[in-house]
C-alpha cells in the first residue's frame, strides 16, 4: 500500500509539507497525489473521530442485522439504496452469514433508535426481520483506543545505571 495513504489514514491532519518531508517527495508531488486519490474515489473523505460518549451520555449506537428478500434484477442494491438514505444510518454492509444486511445506526438515545427500527426499517417491503444490537461500550473504534489511560512508556534508560 502507498505509504501516503497509510499516513493519512492514521492522521488526516498532516499537511502536504509534512508528508513531503516524511516521504522524500516535493510538496507539489504530494498535493498532486492526494488530488488524484480524491478524483479516483480512493480518498473518499476526511472526518474527525469523536468520543461522543464524553459529549452526550445518552447517545446510542446500534448494529442492526436485517434479513431481506432480494429483488430479481438488482438483488440487494435497491433495499440497501433505500436504507442508506436515512440520516440516522451511518453504515450499510452486505454480509455473509446469518443476516443479509448490517446497518449501523446512531441515535440520540436507545429509544430513538428503537423508534427508528420500528417505524422506518421494519415496515420496509422487503425486510423480513430485524435484530437490533446496541453497543454498550466502545473500547476501540476506527483504529483508535478510546478512554485510554495516559500512555506509559515502559522503556527505561539503561545508559545511566
Amino acid at each position, binding site marked *: 500500500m502507498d*505509504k501516503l495513504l497509510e*499516513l493519512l489514514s492514521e*492522521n488526516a491532519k498532516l499537511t502536504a509539507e*509534512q508528508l513531503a*518531508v*516524511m*516521504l*522524500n517527495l516535493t510538496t507539489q508531488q504530494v498535493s498532486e497525489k492526494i488530488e488524484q486519490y480524491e478524483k479516483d474515489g480512493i480518498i473518499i473523505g476526511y472526518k474527525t473521530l469523536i468520543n461522543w460518549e464524553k459529549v452526550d451520555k445518552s447517545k446510542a449506537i446500534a448494529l442492526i442485522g436485517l434479513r431481506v428478500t432480494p429483488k430479481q434484477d438488482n438483488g440487494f442494491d435497491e433495499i440497501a439504496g433505500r436504507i442508506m438514505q436515512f440520516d440516522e444510518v451511518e453504515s450499510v454492509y452486505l454480509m455473509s452469514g446469518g443476516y443479509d444486511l448490517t446497518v449501523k445506526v446512531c441515535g440520540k438515545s436507545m429509544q430513538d433508535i428503537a423508534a427508528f427500527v420500528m417505524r422506518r426499517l421494519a415496515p420496509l417491503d422487503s425486510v423480513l426481520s430485524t435484530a437490533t444490537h446496541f453497543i454498550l461500550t466502545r473500547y476501540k473504534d476506527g483504529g483508535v483506543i478510546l478512554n485510554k489511560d495516559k500512555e506509559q*512508556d515502559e*522503556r*527505561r*534508560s*539503561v*545508559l*545511566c*545505571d
Partner: protein
Amino acid sequence: MTDYCQNMSKAVVSLQPSGIRRFFDIANEMDNVISLSIGEPDFTTPWHVRQEGIRTLEEGKTWYSPNRGFIELRNEISRFMERHYSLSYKPESEILVTVGGSEAIDLTIRSLINPGDEVLIPEPSFVCYKPLTIMAGGVPVIIETKKEDKFKLTAEELADKITPKTKLLILPFPNNPTGAVMRRSDLEAISKIIIENNIMVLSDEIYGELTYGGTKHVSAAEIDGMKERTVVVNGFSKAYAMTGWRLGFAAGPKAVIKQMTKLHQYGIMSAPTTSQYAAIEALKNGDDDISYMRGEYDIRRRFIVNGFNSMGLNCFEPEGAFYVFPCISGTGLSSEQFCEQLLHSERVAVIPGAAFGACGEGFVRVSYSYSLKHITEALSRIEHFIKSV
C-alpha cells in the same frame, strides 16, 4: 565495619561512571516529561516471534542450550549473514551466540587484548568500549570523528593513531549516537591501513539492519582481506525489536571464536534458551518485520531532521540507527547545560553529546524511536526552548 574501598578491584573503582546519572535522576522525578532519550525500538517484538517463545515455554523447553548456542540458531545466523551480507560463516566453529551484542563486545576485547595493547576507539560512540578495554588491561586510544566527515572514520585519522602497540580497532557503525554509516568505499579506504598494520577489527554492527537512503549496510568483513581479521558483532535487539530478550552473536575467525567460547562458557554458560528459540523464528520469518520497521524509522528520521534544521539547529543527516545528533553549540550552552535547561523549562529529555566522548560536546543525541505524534510534540517544545535561549 568493612572498608569497602580497600576491598575493591582498583581497576573497577577507576572506571568512570557514565556521568549523566544525575540528569536522569532529575528527569525521572519530574512529571509530564516527554523523552527522546531512549535507545531501543518502540516497537514490541513481532508477535510470531513472541509466540514461538511462548510455545517453547509451554512445551517445557527450559533447559540450558549448548555453550555456543543451539546449532539450529547458528545455522540460521549463518544463513542470515549469507543472505544480508554475502558472508559465509561455519555454524560449528565461526559463530557464537551471546547475551546481547554487549557480551560479544566484551568477549572479543578480552580474547584479543594483552596488557598494554592499544585499542582504537572512534568517538562519539556507545559508552562500553573504553571501560571494557580498560578491564581487559588494554589502553583505549580515542579517534575523534568529525561532523565535516559525516562522523565517518577516515583513513588519515586512523593512520595518525596507529603505533606498534595497536592491536584492535573498534568499528561502531552504523553509529550510536551520530547515525553515521561507513559505506563500502569508506571501508575500503581504511581497510588498506588496517591490513598493512596487521590490526584486528571488532565491527559492532548491531544497527546493521537500520540504514536508510536505499543502500544497504556493508559489513566490514565483506571488504577484501578483512574477514580473516574481523569479529562481526550483531544481534536481535535493534533489528527485531528484541532488546529485553538479551540475545546477540559474534561471527569471526575460528581461532578467535574458540577463545571467546571459553570465556563465555565459564562466565555465562549459555545464552537464554527461550530467546534462542524465538530468535530462530525471527531469522526464518522476520525479514518483512525488519523492512516494515525500517520504513517507519525512515519516515520519522526525515521528519525529525527537517524539524531540527528548520528551527536552526543544524543537523547532520544520519543514515543509520535511530538517532539524530543536532549541533547545539550556536545556543552558547554546553551540551549538558542545554539538556538540563531543556528538561527544566520544557520538560523534554535528550542526552548530552559529551556522554559519548569528549568530541560529542556541542551536540545532543535525540532518539526517534518514538511515535510521530510524540516526536511532533517534543519538537515543538524544543523549538520553544530555542527561541527563549
